[in-house]
């Protein structure tokens, strides 16, 4: 299992976590390359359908961050 590199779909709020992720880049913080970002205008846009669709399409997990 050591080589398992999961794909995590992350729904990031444009105004909050997306900005934090940008800033993490500016600060050159290093973190694992497993997340795939879907930018959403607000976590209010999130719907359970997206979660299920992501898993269905082969994602290993979904992370929603406002």
């Amino acid at each position, binding site marked *: 299992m050591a080589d398992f590199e999961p794909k995590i779909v*992350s729904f990031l709020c444009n105004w909050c976590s997306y*900005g934090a992720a940008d*800033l993490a880049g500016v600060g050159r913080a290093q*973190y*694992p390359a497993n997340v795939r970002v879907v930018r959403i205008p607000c976590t209010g846009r999130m719907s359970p359908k997206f979660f299920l669709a992501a898993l269905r399409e*082969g994602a290993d997990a979904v*992370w929603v*961050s406002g």
Partner: protein
Amino acid sequence: MKELMEHMGIEPGRLQFSWISSAESTKFVDVVKDVTEKVKALGPNKNFVKEAS
């Protein structure tokens, strides 16, 4: 939601939530690491995946 997931056979750990303000880059990194670790521990998602046709 989590109950529904268990009902459907999906581990609740596959859905994670967090709240991070746009200034909290350190927190963002911590959460990414944490989420990645947790999902790695769960192993690949086998249930509910669309079958390759």
